[in-house]
């Protein structure tokens, strides 16, 4: 099979990024094609149907479902206020009267003569979709949303927690292998996207939360700290909905792992610029990785930078990262691609690759255990 290695994460200085900004249900697009937008701008709006409340009128009034129509005060489509009577009995003796009242402000949606149940619905809730990145509206899909386009740096992480944020990018680590301390974080980092080194500890994360930092970007994070942060074990890698502050983007994986030099250098080079980041991750078919997008200051429109073609496969001289023990996280270059299948220490028989590290040491690892470093 051709697919014997893991495609890498993208880390690129300049590319055209297109972001689909879609409403969850049909609504209205409020920007025009070609308009320049800021990340915070609302680009589309819709009204989500309100919540449903049910009133079992027949039980409350002790009547039969077939008789419900005679007792209803309200009809389908009528508006109702909280505690307003929707159905009542009208006995000869007034003190025997019983009534069913609305538990919500809303409208009567359905009245069932089979179950005796009345469904009420609250007013629709507006939902706004924002641009998320500084750029231009490249396409409008009427009633559904827009595609916002920008040109700039684009960096993918391996796993993130939390949703979309925008702010100034800044670096607090001198090199990609350092582990920063809480004292390295200062008040002026509030609202910023902060690049740290190899590991964020739970103490650093807590301090960042106190300071109002928007995002932490690091090489690794310990799973036990993630469990503490979320309050549960992350079972499957589908994230983005967590209500956390700051959001967290790991570029390498779990544990203390030096951030890839290219990632660190690119992020550091753009310190001081506005960037958007999203921790949302989905590692299944249709894979979604967390990302950091840094629109180029000088141009956000018109220019198109072609994404590089998908790599054909591992080639001698290609830069790679080892993604499994031993040597997990180490970077090297492909020295040789022996044909055929070899048995490794575990006795698993696989196709292998020889990797040379910067110190000249050469190791043989399964091809499935290396990741191309793409640009």
């Amino acid at each position, binding site marked *: 099979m051709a697919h014997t290695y893991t495609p890498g994460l993208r880390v690129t200085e300049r590319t055209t990024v297109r972001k689909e900004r879609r409403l969850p249900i049909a609504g209205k697009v409020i920007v025009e094609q070609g308009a320049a937008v800021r990340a915070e701008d609302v680009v589309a709006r819709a009204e989500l149907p309100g919540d*449903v409340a049910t009133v079992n009128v027949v039980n409350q009034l002790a009547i039969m479902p077939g008789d419900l129509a005679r007792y209803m005060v309200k009809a389908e489509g009528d508006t109702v206020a909280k505690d307003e009577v929707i159905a009542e009995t009208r006995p000869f003796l007034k003190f025997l009267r019983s009534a069913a009242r609305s538990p919500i402000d809303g409208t009567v949606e359905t009245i069932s003569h089979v179950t005796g149940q009345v469904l009420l619905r609250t007013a629709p809730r507006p939902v706004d979709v924002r641009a998320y990145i500084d750029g231009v509206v490249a396409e409008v899909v009427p009633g559904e949303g827009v595609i916002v386009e920008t040109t700039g740096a684009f960096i993918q992480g391996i796993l993130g927690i939390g949703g979309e944020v925008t702010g100034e990018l800044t670096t607090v680590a001198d090199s990609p292998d350092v582990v920063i301390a809480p004292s390295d974080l200062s008040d002026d980092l509030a609202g910023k996207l902060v690049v740290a080194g190899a590991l964020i500890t739970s103490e650093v994360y807590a301090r960042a939360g106190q300071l109002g930092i928007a995002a932490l970007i690091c090489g690794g994070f310990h*799973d036990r700290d993630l469990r503490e942060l979320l309050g549960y074990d992350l079972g499957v890698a589908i994230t983005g909905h967590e209500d956390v502050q700051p959001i967290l983007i790991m570029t390498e994986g779990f544990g203390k792992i030096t951030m890839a030099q290219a990632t660190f250098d690119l992020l550091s080079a753009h310190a001081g610029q506005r960037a958007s980041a999203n921790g949302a991750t989905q590692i299944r078919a249709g894979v979604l990785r967390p990302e950091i997008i840094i629109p180029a200051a000088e141009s956000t429109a018109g220019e198109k930078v072609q994404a590089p073609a998908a790599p054909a496969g591992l080639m001698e001289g290609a830069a790679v990262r080892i993604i499994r023990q031993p040597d997990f996280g180490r970077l090297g270059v492909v020295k040789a691609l022996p044909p055929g299948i070899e048995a490794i220490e575990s006795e*698993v028989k696989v196709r292998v690759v020889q990797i040379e590290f910067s110190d000249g040491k050469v190791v043989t*690892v399964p091809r499935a*255990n290396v990741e191309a470093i793409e640009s």
Partner: protein
Amino acid sequence: MTEQDLNVIVATDCGSTTTKAILIERTDEGYRQTFRGEAPTTVEAPFEDVTRGVLNALTELEELSGRRILDGERIITPAHDNEGVDIYISTSSAGGGLQMMVAGVVKSMTAESAQRAALGAGAIVMDVLASNDQRAPHEKIERIRTLRPDMVLLSGGTDGGTVRHVVELAEFLAAANPRPRLGASFMLPIVYAGNKDAQAAIKETLGDKAELHITDNLRPVLERENLAPARDEIHDLFLKHVMAQAPGYKKLMSWVGAPIMPTPAAVGDLIQHVAQSRGLNIVGVDIGGATTDIFSDFLAPPPKGEPAGEGQRVFNRSVSANLGMSYSISNVLAETGLANIMRWLPFDMDEADLRDRIKNKMIRPTTVPHLLEELKIEQAIAREALRLAFEQHKQLAVGLKGVQRGRTISESFDESSSGDTLITMADLDVLVGSGGVLSHAPRRSQAMMMLIDAFGPQGITRLCVDSIFMMPHLGVLAQIHEAAAIEVFEHDCLIYLGTCVSPMGKVKAGGRCFEYALTVDGQTRNGAVAAGEIVLEPLTVGQVATVRLEPARGVDLGDGRGRAIEAEVIGGVVGVVFDGRGRPLEIPQDNRSETLTRWAQALDAYPA
């Protein structure tokens, strides 16, 4: 085309990541699987056409077999000489398979029957809604709205019973106005298989909000399930709606000579065919990266008062949607806890390190264990994933609940009741494992150990693994040529690991558990198994031996405590495992490493 005309068959299984093609040919020795090719599945961007992956897999098959199968993008039929095939068939689980929500009135009765019907049809059940599931109406509606199933199965009420509750569920569905996962402009298919007296009211409630299909009640009376009509309707809708929306499937459907089946439905059908034609109680497991499916076909005990042997065969399938070895590996940890994984490791390890390693496998799911230690960790996790999935299966594979039965006084003291699991390990004849961690374990004895440790077979049980996961292909083949499918299943699909002999219940550590005399080809080998230990006797594939077992006092090997038994055992690539560890299996924690190492050594499971 008749069965007689089928000499060359090509079958594919379009999985979420890989499309696997196999060639089956009629030879002098009968039907045999001869070649296999595979290619990445191409449902997702940039290809968005499942047939690309199928063509690539068939091209590989052509290269390996030397048979010309394709003429451009057309499959050549029928076969003549070294060209073409007589039929092309396929299964599919690409794009997430078939995802369903089911609803019923009483959680343990009609809702449970509906769940069994959907699972049997090959679906992943996203949620089971019931009138008595403790959720408030608005919570139910919100849940329906947020899920995006491919279709919904609504049931409830026995025929002639009350209509109110099932109509109420229909009202919740209508209020939520759910949309299908694929094809936003289509109406959601809803299969109604409940009280026939409620059909008119259901039509009125849902008729203009969904694509409603009405079929026979799946629980017409409390005492009987009638799942087939609902299951067939689900299959039809799967082809018409779900498949038709997936990229390239319309083209694929025009190529096949028999309807495309959801992968798990095909595997289930095959297991049913084999169990029923051979009269065997079978459990099959497929442990994948994201999910673990378990299938069972058992002869249910006859109703009280009826003679033995009058029971009915009952098939069940369960899907543990988030128990798997890559995408879901971390969920195994979340569900079973770290201690349960650590107990299978024959070495000590820092807990934080183990947590990080499991998570790193989750985020890089295609990596393989390089170090022996890493392989042992993965196999420890596999034991727990299999154990949990089997627990879930046993809870689903039960007798019908809510059935009134007359009971004698002695039965009242008996713990059994309606709703007992049908899976009795002592009656299990064959356990079949499949999925990468079992089928591709570097040593077959590792697969045998994992199956024994996770499932805890009792008495005498034969164990096998599916060599290259061709059960889906054979399941769909069984629809058109059952005999050919079973022939290939027995000869090429299964790798016979051997037989496990184990006592029922606990044994006292340190003492003798049982003695055996294994006679093969006139030669007898005698041995003793100490309580808490394992002994392996070689017996190769195809060899049949008789074994006489003499249990120690208090030990039951299937015929009562202390009673000797004589039986036939069948060999395999591992042999006969005499397992004296008792059930449920307990691992002594004070000398865990030593014990686990000794057990592994008994089966030569790992390199020294």
